[in-house]
């Protein structure tokens, strides 16, 4: 497996690689702001961070251990390549994009869980590393009942043109047209007619049968030959014709549906929004905040500080053939991605991308990480439904897509303190990490370091080691598994565990 950065270097040995150019840009802005970049993290922390971001879970202990013990100078690039090619990467990416396509901010959480078809559909494409622009095209034009995925995207938004428009514009174009739904946009130039002209592309999508009336139910999608949108409060006014952002109104033609017209515009190679929006979305996922908040067709993105950098990455992304895997590879290969955690996500270092903002784990990441401590079970198969995981995710869900915002409750804490997921990871007789570490030939210090490495990706501090080794000291072989389980429990419940640092 070739590393993205290495491949670029081969293309033109004299030019710096994209990750290097990204770092040069970030370091220059940081210097201008007088912000000192944080040092690079040690191997364990790096692998934990990388594995959570690319595979959606902490590494297996065996992998973690061999990684930190390896003295191969190329081990970080190798780990990146291995994780990007793993099936778990496709599954995790499918979860991330499902959540973006069906945001929970409005409370549509059940919709999201019901969108199993969408998750499978995305995972299949990410596993084959289908071009991103093709994924978007297929999502927007899909009709086939065999492709339940896209249909559940449309049904989750109740086939409403305004909902589909605001979600797809935000996600696929990087612009918040929503505000223009009711009034002209306060700081961008979007007019109400821009929003409704864009929404008109979705005015004719229908469900073939009434199943669609029930939210979350899925059936075959069809494109009717009539159906219009009008400005709110102007129900008797003229219909708004479909119009791409910044483009001319389109005529209805017999051989193309409106959704096809939209998808063709989105998939145009020089569409000014799509590649930039994808890059910004992936960056947001990996750093907790985007390079920009709002994309501008002419490159005057808001805010301006990182607008040129976004454009530079987006140009490479287009040149790569909209290769999402390569895009992830570039970003996690930067020095910026390797830097130590900031003391706060709102620190100037974190805002300048020269220290990592602590990002809360999604419920799925937390469950899958705890599962890695437990013995391998039948439910480990990602293609099998897992009711325990669904129940955990339902209980532990966050209310906000923002990874920097923590919106928990005491009830969610109770799930961690007394619920099954942590108990299964710490139930000694059932094997897994606890059983492995109870082996008599290990020293207590070894055990403490191993637990800390497995869960948190670091060595125990001196104080931690003293306290926890003391806790294990003098235990009989019979008592030891329980005590080890107690340490794992405490660490699984720690704040450090609940975040990616």
């Amino acid at each position, binding site marked *: 497996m070739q590393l993205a950065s290495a491949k670029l270097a081969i293309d033109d040995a004299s030019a710096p690689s994209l990750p290097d150019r990204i770092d040069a840009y970030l370091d220059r802005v940081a210097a201008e702001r007088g912000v000192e970049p944080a040092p690079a993290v040690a191997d364990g922390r790096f692998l934990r961070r990388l594995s959570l971001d690319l595979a959606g879970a902490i590494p297996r202990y065996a992998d973690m251990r061999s990684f930190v013990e390896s003295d191969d100078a190329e081990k970080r690039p190798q780990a990146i390549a291995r994780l990007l090619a793993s099936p778990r990467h496709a599954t995790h990416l499918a979860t991330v994009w499902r959540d973006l396509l069906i*945001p929970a901010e409005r409370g549509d959480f059940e919709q999201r869980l019901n969108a199993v078809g969408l998750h499978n559909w995305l995972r299949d494409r990410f596993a084959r590393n289908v071009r991103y622009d093709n994924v978007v095209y297929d999502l927007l034009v899909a009709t086939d009942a065999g492709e339940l995925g896209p249909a559940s995207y449309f049904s989750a938004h109740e086939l409403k043109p305004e909902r589909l428009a605001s979600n797809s514009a935000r996600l696929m174009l990087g612009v918040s047209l929503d505000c223009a739904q009711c009034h002209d946009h306060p700081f961008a130039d979007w007019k109400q007619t821009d929003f409704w002209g864009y929404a008109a592309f979705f005015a004719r999508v229908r469900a073939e049968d009434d199943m669609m009336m029930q939210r979350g139910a899925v059936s075959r999608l069809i494109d009717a030959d009539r159906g219009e949108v009008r400005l709110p409060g102007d129900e008797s006014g003229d219909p708004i014709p479909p119009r791409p952002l910044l483009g001319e109104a389109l005529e209805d033609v017999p051989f193309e549906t409106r959704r096809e017209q939209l998808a063709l515009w989105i998939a145009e190679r020089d569409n000014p929004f799509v590649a930039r929006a994808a890059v910004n979305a992936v960056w947001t996922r990996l750093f907790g905040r985007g390079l920009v908040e709002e994309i501008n067709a002419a490159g005057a993105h808001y805010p301006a500080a990182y607008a040129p950098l976004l454009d530079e990455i987006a140009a490479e992304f287009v040149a790569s053939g909209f290769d999402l895997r390569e895009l992830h590879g570039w970003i996690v290969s930067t020095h910026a991605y390797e830097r130590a955690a900031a003391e*706060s996500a709102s620190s100037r270092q974190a805002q300048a991308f020269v220290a990592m903002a602590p990002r809360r784990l999604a419920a799925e990441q937390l469950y899958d990480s705890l599962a890695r401590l437990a013995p391998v079970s039948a439910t480990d198969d990602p293609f099998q439904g897992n009711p325990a995981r669904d129940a955990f995710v339902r209980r532990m869900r966050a*209310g906000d897509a*923002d990874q920097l915002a923590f*919106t928990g*409750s005491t009830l969610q804490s109770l799930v961690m303190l*007394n619920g099954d997921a942590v108990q299964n990871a710490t139930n000694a007789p059932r094997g897994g990490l606890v059983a492995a570490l109870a082996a008599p030939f290990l020293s207590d210090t070894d055990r403490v370091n191993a637990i800390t490495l497995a869960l948190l990706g670091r060595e125990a501090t001196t104080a931690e080691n003293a*306290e926890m080794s003391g806790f294990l000291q003098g235990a009989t072989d019979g008592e030891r598994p329980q005590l080890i389980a107690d340490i794992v429990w405490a660490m699984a419940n720690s704040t*450090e565990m609940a975040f990616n640092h």
Partner: protein
Amino acid sequence: MHDHAWLSRRDLMRHSGLGLVGASLSGWFPRLANAALAEAASSRAPRRQAVLLWMAGGPTQTDTFDMKPGHANGGVFDEVATSVPGLRFSEHLPKLAEQADQLAVIRSISSKEGDHARATQLARTGQSPGGDLEYPSIACSLAGELPAPGGGLPGHVSIATPTLLPAAFGPGFLGPHRTPASVEATPPAGDGYASLRVENLDLASGVSKERFARRKRLWRSLQGEFLANRTDASLIAHDGLHRKAIELMEGSAREAFDLGGEPETIRDAYGRGRFGQGCLLARRLLQRGVPFVEVSLGGDDLGWDTHIDGFRRVQELSTELDNGWGTLMQDLRTLGLLETTTVFCIGEFGRTPSINGAGGRDHFPDAWSCVLSGGGVAGGQAYGKTSDDGTTVVDGKVGIGDVLATFAAALGVDPHTENVAGGDRPIKIAEGEPIAELLA
């Protein structure tokens, strides 16, 4: 923006940790700050509390609070006098009849939804389904407006909640941190009492108190070291919520959920079933400062949905309702809490005044009743009037929005208080107008 620079973020989280069960940042952060400031400003205002009694399935108004004696629709129960001259209820609500001076019956609700799911959504959120937002239940909205309890207790507890329609019982766009603590109720076995249990509040099997204490010690020292030099608000919020959860498991809060210490005479007075024991638990929680408690009667089997053999079942349900609610009111009065506690009883719709061929009544949203009582309510009256046959509202017609607004106002909350939904949309707690005549 409000200026609260004098509150550092850490202070704010601490403060809210004392005040709110959920902590949140980002979109909710300014609101949290305002809540903390408001709480500080109004610390001398009397504590207000609320109980929502949810009648799942749609109770029959004609056999309870809006009877039609002498009419063909009247049914088999007698209408009897209450403690308030002229105000008459069914014979099967004796404890409530004694306290009718505290009760205000609204007999003139007219709504549009006649399907259980749609009507439940409407009655509980004020919004019919199909809108473009997931609206919070009125309980979740109001619970967030009331001063929070101490001692690790949650600000909103929901007892024997139906699981059928989570959206109608949940916080919607307010966010999952506003989810009520759910108490599962199991019906009594034989002659015993219904058992009530908070999910995940008990130690996991195989974990003794001593072992948990050990785990907690380890956890505390890990937390202390990790958080020592960190200022990130999300990290601090996570730590605070875990500490509150432990306090809830171990503190006096834990004991609030244990009905075992109540004398049998008291437990029996409330009724041995899920609703009765739920009302008793509600009283214990109110005593300890929990601002909002919901208790459901009818639950997942939609008990009040009495299409067949209605009178026998309505009589049983009335007795359950009367024992639970009536005893709760008596206790609250004795404890001096009735003046500050508003109790609101409503289902998703009423039932047809006409009796069907199976001896029951069917769904009926055109003209039905609900009852407000206790704090902030001008009791001892019936508001609005239905026709002699009960089929139409002839006076004082109100919608669900007005009813929910009246509940909010009785509780001392401005029903037009706005919460901000995704996309910066201000959404009122209730869109109707409070009924002035019913407010004390």
